[in-house]
């Protein structure tokens, strides 16, 4: 396996593992006290519609931060398109690795247009976001170095992808043969410099992403469903009751004198016992 194929494999593995680790950690966090925020859409259907509208139209940004909306929309749609393209290529590569024909890749103008659209939207969006981050005093003042690293890195990926599209692999035929060979355990074909740059930058970024706020693509499920819209009351004999009993029996570690904790007293004891 070539270095590029190895890097891509490791990048994808690190991305999946990192995201899983973060998601499992969020899932395993103790039940919190109710902290819901209205409006809460009615039923699962209403909640799904609200989330879908948010993901597809960035409604809140459009309404409350209109100057950021267009670059943000372009950026996100670029990512949606390229993610879908990557998933299609990966699935196609897997099929091809096992000898299936994948006529939709290689020589397809649809895929070429798809890629071009994704790269253009993503790059324009990233440039717009970078410009707003640099020029808007409020956003600039609150930006962390990591915010610039994220956008800069993505811009570099879009640049390398544009180079690969323009000079090496417009119809993604090479990408398919590369993936099919790698997934089939055969020797991968020699990659162009553009393709190698694109793949290495992407692999590194995938490994890095779980350490950033960009995990909001799945964390949003928790922030909305598990906090903002979680108005489930305590029910006798229900799992929440058991969980609360477990948590109230945990020791209180806080040290201020009025808390009256000694490292052993539980939350239930501190809340109901004699105050110091």
């Amino acid at each position, binding site marked *: 396996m070539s270095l590029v194929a190895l890097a891509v494999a490791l990048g994808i593995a690190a991305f999946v593992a990192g995201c899983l680790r*973060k998601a499992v950690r*969020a899932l395993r*966090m*103790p*039940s*919190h*006290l*109710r*902290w*819901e*925020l*209205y*409006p*809460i859409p009615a039923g699962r259907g209403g909640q799904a519609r609200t989330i879908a509208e*948010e993901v597809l139209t*960035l*409604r*809140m940004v459009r309404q*409350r*931060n209109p100057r*950021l909306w267009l670059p*943000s929309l372009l950026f996100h749609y670029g990512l949606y398109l390229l993610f879908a393209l990557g998933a299609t290529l990966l699935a196609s590569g897997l099929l091809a690795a096992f000898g299936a024909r994948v006529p939709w890749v290689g020589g397809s103008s649809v895929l070429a247009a798809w890629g071009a659209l994704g790269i253009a939207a993503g790059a324009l969006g990233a440039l717009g976001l970078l410009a707003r981050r640099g020029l*808007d005093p*409020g*956003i600039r*003042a*609150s930006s*962390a*170095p990591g*915010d610039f*690293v994220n956008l800069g890195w993505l811009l570099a990926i879009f640049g390398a992808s544009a180079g690969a599209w323009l000079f090496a692999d417009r119809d993604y035929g090479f990408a398919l043969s590369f993936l099919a060979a790698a997934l089939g355990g055969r020797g991968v074909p020699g990659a162009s410099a553009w393709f190698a740059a694109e793949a290495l930058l992407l692999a590194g970024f995938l490994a890095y992403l779980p*350490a950033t*706020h960009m*995990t*909001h693509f799945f*964390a*949003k499920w*928790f*922030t*909305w469903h*598990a*906090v903002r819209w979680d108005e489930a*009351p*305590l*029910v*006798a004999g229900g799992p*929440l*009751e058991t969980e609360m009993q477990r*948590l*109230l029996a*945990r020791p*209180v*570690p*806080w*040290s*201020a004198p*009025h808390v009256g904790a000694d490292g052993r007293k539980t939350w239930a004891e*501190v*809340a*109901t016992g004699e105050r110091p």
Partner: protein
Amino acid sequence: MKVGDLGNALRPGETLSPLRLEDLVPLPPPYDAIDPAALWKELDASKKESTSGVLDGVCALNLKRPADAAAEQRLVDTFKAGLGKLLSEDGNWAFLQPLALTLENCTHCQTCAEACPIFVGSGHNEAYRPTVRADALRRLAARFGPGGNRWKGALAGDLDLNADTILRLAELAYRCTLCRRCAQACPIGVDNGLVAHELRKLFSMEMGIAAAECHAKGSELQLRVGSTTGMSPAVVRDNVEFIDEETREKTGLNVATPFDKEGADVLLLHNAGEIMTWPENPGAFAVILEAAGVSWTLSSELVGYDAVNYGLWYDDVQFARVALRHAEIARKLKVKKIVLGECGHAHKALMVVADRILGAGAVPRESCLAFLDGLVASGRLDLDPARNDFPVTLHDPCNTARAMGLVEEPRRILRRIAPRFREMAPHGVENYCCGGGSGFAIMSPNNFAEWRTLVAGRLKMKQVLDAFAGEEPDTPKYLCAPCSNCKGQFRDLFRAYGAWERSRLLYGGLAELIVNAMPDVKPGFIEWGQQ
């Protein structure tokens, strides 16, 4: 001012992010002629230097700078210990998941900024940007929190951890009313308002730092004496007896408030501030409940006659102590349900946040807004809307609207009893905080009261005035504010801006407006005049 500046030393006399009175959101005429400087009080210069007042020239906490390097190191070490506990399961299981998600997923897009009434009302003072205190905590957690390191710290952004940072962060935690309008605006679901709450907890539960009005004169007093007003059980009985007499005289109805009636259908839990400061509100409730034939009672048990729970704003332990006490009193009285009086934070405390720690067998709790809505809809009250023929608008308390979704209930009542009711813009779950939320309405140290009326409540004041635009200045107007803390803030806002003299503006509760519409009551339950 940037987040990283919070730890910077300043030259003598310098303020990190000074308040600029000329930038405040303008008010409509004739209030535009009021010079904000006439309502402002500069912080004493010596205090500015010796306390945490160097953030914005305002001082809520009176924290003293450490005397020497060793004391500063102790302060830093205690803060670090608290940070670890705040991000641990044992220390903060109650809010760990929302806090961790908030710290990890903010993209710094600033969509929340324009949602904050304090940031906007101040004319965009950078210290009040909703992300500032949250980003400060993000940076400190990335560097010093569990799993934190230099690399994470570098990506999150620099922020020195020293006495300046800690003192300013403590003050910053008291520049947010916890109204959570920023959280509502966040497309990701990040809750930067929660961070102010969590910072207050760290300071209180680990470092013993809290606003005196919330802690020493607040929840501690309530747990010791029975009420944050200082009223003992005997005093509260005397005061309510006096209110009954006044109400009988005023209404011509025979009203007697029952105490400790075992097995009553309703245990009414007022904010005791109503009994002390706005006696017409408990009086109005008594009239309504008697007229509707409700079996009800007040409690004279310690803590049982004061619905407030200031721990909600700054300390989980104090919060749990008061909430469990309320639930226990109701259980012992064998009442069928608790009805929370017109107090927003008490609603959120006992009905929402405490819900999962009270146990499944706890006595049910209901909002007075829903309860009164039910009584009005049932036809058990004779009501004549013509008696309320004056302009009325409604202030939605953040804790009943945004945190509980109680939006239609008060409106159904107002549409029935107030023919000249009109909405503010925005309203309902998108309302602006009055500026007195999270304890601010009871806090007035140094120049904090002036800051609260000039900055925190500025946008609300504008909103109220806009709601009555077009009405003659000498037409009496009623701002219905069904929340004690909101009323406390409106009292100070209206006084500072001369709202009665300039616009004949009066604030009051919802129950008073209902009683004012009852034909059996002598006319004029609502008394117009300088409050």
